[in-house]
């Protein structure tokens, strides 16, 4: 009993109060407000109209698919590239410390800044990327103006911007793998390639889980980069749930916007909660 009192629950209170008022209350309230016609001036009860409206928006289904595509693509790329970069940057190559900083640098730069920068670089005719491609005889695509390509281009920029953080987490993960594992593998005659798949990949698993969950959540919620680069366009082709929600908010349809929020919440919960639960279970087993 004495031991329990050494870790009192009141330690939860200071953070809990802030969290409850500014996060839990609005989240719970959002269920009510999503059932109203709500704008800065009034809230009238609307029943399920907002949800009906949201699902009859022809662009919504597109937005949901785009959100999923974006989240899975970016988190797959960040996980894969992050691991490769981390292995490379812990292998004792020349200028290793400098390269680590370079890869991490985009994480420091504001997302809006990155968005504006790539908007210029990806300009279809004057952008540096297509000018460079033209110099070697390739007719570069309309990165952000081709409706089939826009979301993909934003995803590439998101990976560019976020891979530094994934790499950092992996570097931390790799540093927890003792050299004895590689010694043992080498004694068994494993090639570098086999060492990578049989030693590195399994043992760095906790870091992989962190990277996947963080980048998946980030991808599902992403707003600022898309907003800075395409505003969901051309047309609706790179709209994701977060940008649809923001557009409804902007247009003064607060109830509709909040209904979108609830839908995004349910979607993230449906994807990430099982994943987090699975991770948690692993943690308990460990």
């Amino acid at each position: 009993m004495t031991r329990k009192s050494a870790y009192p629950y009141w330690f939860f209170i200071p953070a809990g109060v802030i969290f409850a008022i500014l996060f839990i209350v609005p989240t719970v309230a959002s269920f009510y407000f999503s059932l109203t016609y709500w704008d800065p001036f009034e809230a009238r009860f609307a029943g399920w109209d907002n949800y009906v409206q949201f699902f009859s928006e022809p662009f919504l289904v597109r937005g949901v698919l785009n959100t999923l595509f974006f989240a899975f693509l970016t988190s797959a790329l960040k996980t894969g590239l992050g691991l490769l970069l981390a292995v490379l940057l812990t292998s004792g190559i020349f200028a290793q410390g400098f390269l680590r900083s370079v890869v991490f640098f985009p994480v420091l730069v504001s997302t809006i800044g990155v968005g504006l920068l790539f908007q210029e670089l990806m300009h279809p005719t004057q952008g540096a990327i297509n000018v460079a491609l033209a110099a070697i005889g390739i007719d570069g695509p309309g990165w952000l103006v081709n409706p089939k390509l826009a979301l993909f281009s934003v995803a590439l920029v998101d990976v560019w911007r976020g891979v530094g953080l994934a790499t950092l987490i992996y570097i931390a993960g790799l540093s927890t793998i003792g050299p004895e594992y590689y010694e043992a593998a080498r004694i068994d005659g494993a090639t570098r390639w086999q060492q990578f798949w049989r030693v590195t990949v399994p043992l760095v698993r906790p870091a992989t889980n962190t990277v996947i969950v963080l980048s998946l959540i980030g991808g599902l919620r992403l707003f600022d980069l898309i907003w800075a680069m395409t505003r969901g366009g051309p047309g609706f082709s790179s709209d994701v749930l977060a940008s649809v929600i923001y557009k409804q908010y902007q247009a003064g349809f607060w109830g509709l916007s909040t209904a979108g929020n609830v839908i995004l919440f349910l979607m993230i919960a449906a994807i990430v909660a099982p994943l987090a639960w699975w991770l948690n279970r692993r943690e308990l087993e460990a």
Partner: protein
Amino acid sequence: MTDRSLTARNYAMGVVALLLAFVVFIVPFLFVAINAMKTAPDAAQLDFSLPERWVFWENVVTTVQTRDYALLLAYWNSTLITVCAITILVIFGAMVGFVIQRRPSPVSRFVYVLILSGLMIPPAVVPTIWVLQGINLFKTLQGMILIQVAYGLGFTVLLFRAFIATIPRELDEAAIIDGAKPWQVFFRVVLPLLKPVTVTVIVVQSISIFNDFTHPLYYLPGRDNVTVQLTLYNFQSQFASQNNLLFMNILLITIPPLIVFVFFNRQIVAGMTSGAVKG
């Protein structure tokens, strides 16, 4: 892979990696830097040519002076928000992580799940504005600070909890036997041991708060409340034809996070090691 000596192979790979990193990561920033030093018509071309006339300092001055020194005000506001929010996050977040880790119980599990859900669930923006207005914190720096605390708590508690698991319980038990009160155990014994993970929290969260665009856009309208990211955004609407100043603004607002990074570079990995990457 454990071979740390600089062999010819490592050297060659390093050079190749440097070249690739140069094209992929450095060239885009060179583009920003070069264009930030051009005159407006020159920068309108948006190419890689060297400036016709180097106007670095003039552009710095113009950018800073724009809109009545909005950038300086923004620096102050963003720094204040970041420093206050981080301080609160570290202390309160560590307290929560400490009890959750040390006292496994249904209550702790419930609190942990709730706080982790904050990492996942997108904030309900408009209802939050409604709450902030109700408690008179809408459009205030205090309100923004508390919002950043609420939104950053999930990640912070996650890191602290994992790190505290690596601190032997015997340490706090020894203090308890010596008659220390819970808060003494926490502040005198545990908190000082959390330095590595605290550095990680500070770096990761301060960058994300300082660079936050979305939440100030929603919760902190008004000229007096401008934050650095919003200056960029405002610049875009006001100076559609002045890319040089836009890029200069990007350069200027990247300096603070860069300083934080240079300062703490080596310690970040240490905190993560015990934090998010171990089972």
